[in-house]
């Protein structure tokens, strides 16, 4: 029995990476807050003088605040691509509201008699602002900066989705890999950073009003220094750039395998798979980790590199459910198994293409597919109970969930509801074991490597054979979780490295070994 890796072990092993991510995170936070102060404080001053437009400006900043952070990051990508630029802009927009609003409120809150006295004594507007309004509004403005900083420490974790780095890399990697240590290694420092900055700024805020006068000049300087952290880790330039999902980064059958088996070392960014393909197409990235059946491979004119040393294990999809569910709903397994062997790689790619790229509704695509396979039946009574179908947030999951819903309703008297978009493997698997959902489609490879944490020698002995992997996973799941694997659907949605077709042809790269040679020569 292997001893379980503790959080402390993980932190020790990854201390370099952790430091880098913490610095990046701090940098991201403070660059954006600094920008927000540079724009927000003057804006707040401006609207305190022109009350008519104050509603408009505060409204705009308020709307920015209500956009979900991940959506805001998403909006930035078409405009600014991926990486730090869109992340900083999005974070800046988030920080804007508290700073504008607090500047405005702070200045409005200065006793009218005091400003009248100042004007009446012959202070110019400038003197009034610098000697009276800003010093008296400073505690309120600092409170705004404090709020903005804490918000941004939190939102900056999402920057990992668009290849801007930060502690989100560990957090999302950990969620994707079902690796609690990795998740905590990101989450705890992020929380500590938020608490630390909040505390430091609260000290500043409550310092004697007189000393803040000097502090006001010091503050931007401190922010500037903290901002510059972002530039430190950026030491590679002008080399091939790979964008990998957080999940891929930490997996043995992912980047770790690429390094150990192929000896591939390249500059990598962590990026969400939602935008990865497009980023490759737009030449923001040169190599990406995709899934072989993804519709966007077709849409964005990419080419899958052959895994000539077989490090990517088979990822055959099959529905998994708790044994108790099967006993409770005996008609379920036959209905689900009607799909077994029906979808091969190219069909899945085509289905994904329709959903991911042609933006068709997964339900429509599922219905059309079932009709073409003569499997579509009108829905039954639905009185026999309700089956909850889960899925991960990938195209495969949505389509398969819809297909299963129609199969269950067509061939049994159960009703079915779908709970799609449950995030990564860990979230959806926890939902299954905790009886939040009844079934979801899982991949054999994920079961083997992520959920079971199979010992290395076992993995090595069976990884080349898809049948052996399926058998091992079925048995182990039954024993360990009392969860049953039904018959695989047919397609193998394995990891794949891919690059632009034009590049691959230009440099004659058709497999991962060739890519490794190419990268090593270039460096």
């Amino acid at each position, binding site marked *: 029995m292997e001893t379980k890796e503790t959080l402390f072990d993980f932190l020790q092993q990854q201390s370099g990476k952790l430091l880098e991510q913490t610095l990046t995170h701090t940098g991201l936070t403070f660059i954006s807050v600094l920008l927000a102060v540079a724009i927000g404080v003057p804006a707040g001053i401006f609207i305190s003088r022109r009350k008519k437009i104050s509603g408009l400006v505060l409204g705009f900043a308020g709307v920015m605040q209500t956009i979900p952070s991940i959506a805001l990051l998403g909006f930035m990508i078409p405009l600014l691509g991926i990486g730090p630029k869109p992340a900083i802009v999005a974070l800046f927009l988030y920080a804007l509201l508290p700073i504008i609003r607090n500047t405005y409120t702070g200045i409005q809150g200065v006793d009218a*008699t005091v400003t009248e006295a*100042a004007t009446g004594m012959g202070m110019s507007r400038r003197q009034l602002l610098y000697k009276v309004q800003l010093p008296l509004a400073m505690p309120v403005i600092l409170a705004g900066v404090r709020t903005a900083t804490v918000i941004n420490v939190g939102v900056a974790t999402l920057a990992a989705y668009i290849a801007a780095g930060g502690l989100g890399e560990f957090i999302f990697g950990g969620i994707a890999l079902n690796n609690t240590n990795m998740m905590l290694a990101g989450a705890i420092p992020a929380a500590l950073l938020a608490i630390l900055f909040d505390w430091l700024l609260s000290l500043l805020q409550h310092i004697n009003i007189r000393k803040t006068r000097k502090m006001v000049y010091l503050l931007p300087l401190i922010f500037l220094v903290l901002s510059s952290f972002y530039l430190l880790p950026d030491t590679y330039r002008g080399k091939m750039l790979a964008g990998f999902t957080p999940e891929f980064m930490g997996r043995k059958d992912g980047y770790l395998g690429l390094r150990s088996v192929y000896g591939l070392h390249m500059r990598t960014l962590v990026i969400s798979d939602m935008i990865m393909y497009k980023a490759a197409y737009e030449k923001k990235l040169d190599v990406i980790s995709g899934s072989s059946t993804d519709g966007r491979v077709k849409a964005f004119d990419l080419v899958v590199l052959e895994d000539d040393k077989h490090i990517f294990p088979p990822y055959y999809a099959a529905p998994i459910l708790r044994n108790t569910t099967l006993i409770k709903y005996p008609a379920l397994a036959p209905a689900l198994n009607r799909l077994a062997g029906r979808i091969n790689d190219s069909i899945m790619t085509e289905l994904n293409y329709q959903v991911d790229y042609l933006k068709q509704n997964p339900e429509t695509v599922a219905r059309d597919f079932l009709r073409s396979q003569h499997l579509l039946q009108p829905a039954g009574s639905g009185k026999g109970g309700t089956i909850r179908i889960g899925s991960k947030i990938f195209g495969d999951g949505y389509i398969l969930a819809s297909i299963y819903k129609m199969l269950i309703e067509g061939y049994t008297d159960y009703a079915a509801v779908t709970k799609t978009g449950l995030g990564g493997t860990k979230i959806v698997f926890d939902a299954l074991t905790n009886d939040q959902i009844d079934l979801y489609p899982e991949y054999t490879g994920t079961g083997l490597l992520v959920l079971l944490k199979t010992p290395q020698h076992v993995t090595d002995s069976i990884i080349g054979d898809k049948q052996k992997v399926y058998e091992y996973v079925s048995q182990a799941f039954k024993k360990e979780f009392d969860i049953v694997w039904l018959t695989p659907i047919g397609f193998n949605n394995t990891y794949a490295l891919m690059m632009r077709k034009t590049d691959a042809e230009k440099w004659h790269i058709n497999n991962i070994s060739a890519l490794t040679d190419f990268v090593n020569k270039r460096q």
Partner: protein
Amino acid sequence: MIKLDHVFKNFGPQKNAVNDLSLEVADGETLVLLGTSGCGKTTTLRMINRLLEPDSGHIYVNGKEIRQLAPETLRRNIGYVLQNTGLFPHYTVSENIAIVPSLLQWDKATIQQRVITLMDKLHLPPVEYADAWPQQLSGGQQQRVGLARALAANPPVLLMDEPFGALDPLTRISVRREFKALDELSNRTIILVTHDVEEAFELGSRICLMNEGTIQQLGTPLELLRRPANEFVAAFLAPQRLLLELKTLKIKDLWPWLPHQHGPGHTTALSADQNCWEAMEAVISQPVLVQYAQEQKILDGSGLMQAIAAWKN
């Protein structure tokens, strides 16, 4: 020194806050703008240091039309005292007093000297109060700091907007007394706004009684009492008429009507510049000797009353 020439100001379409107002204030005079709230007295005051701009008409300070000056320049040469002091909460007492001299870029030593002088004169021992914060002071002390701040740069003109309005009655009377005794104020041209009739009669060398943006009467306290210009003035003063008369009338004003009485053993206890109110307090216990223009008279209660009655007729 200060001249308002057909000044109009309105804030809404209906009614003029200040309606065709003309007046002149002589050098060294204290003019009190008196009236109920909303009569336009504060508006008038705020137009003189350009916190408000008149809709039409001209205002001259020291012979200069004020619009020819930058507002800041104008204001730095006019002391301004507000009802709620408007002291800067983030400045110490001495820093507050030094604001205008600093704006005028006096050198540090001069400012320091001036601040200490003023604090001494206003009974705020610098050792104790120079580094205190305004919030730590009593209302009366704060008002004195406000006055010191207005006087700091030696402005020839002082505008005071209800300077004692926020103080409790006891403090108000004592601060007012100090104010009257303050030599710093003796040569300045002062315009003071108040709604307190007694205060107006006590402090004003002339009083401008206003109603609905127009002047009802402009004159010395005695003129207002003796010859009210219209019904409004008479009605406005009626409730406190006797008190005002007693406080305004000085013994010397009554001199012709005071009986000639002589007697030994009386010491001079009153000056002829004191008012009837004070005289009455003095003569309640025993008659007193008053000297005026090389003449001595013995003053007692009945003599004083008869003289007042005679003056009124």
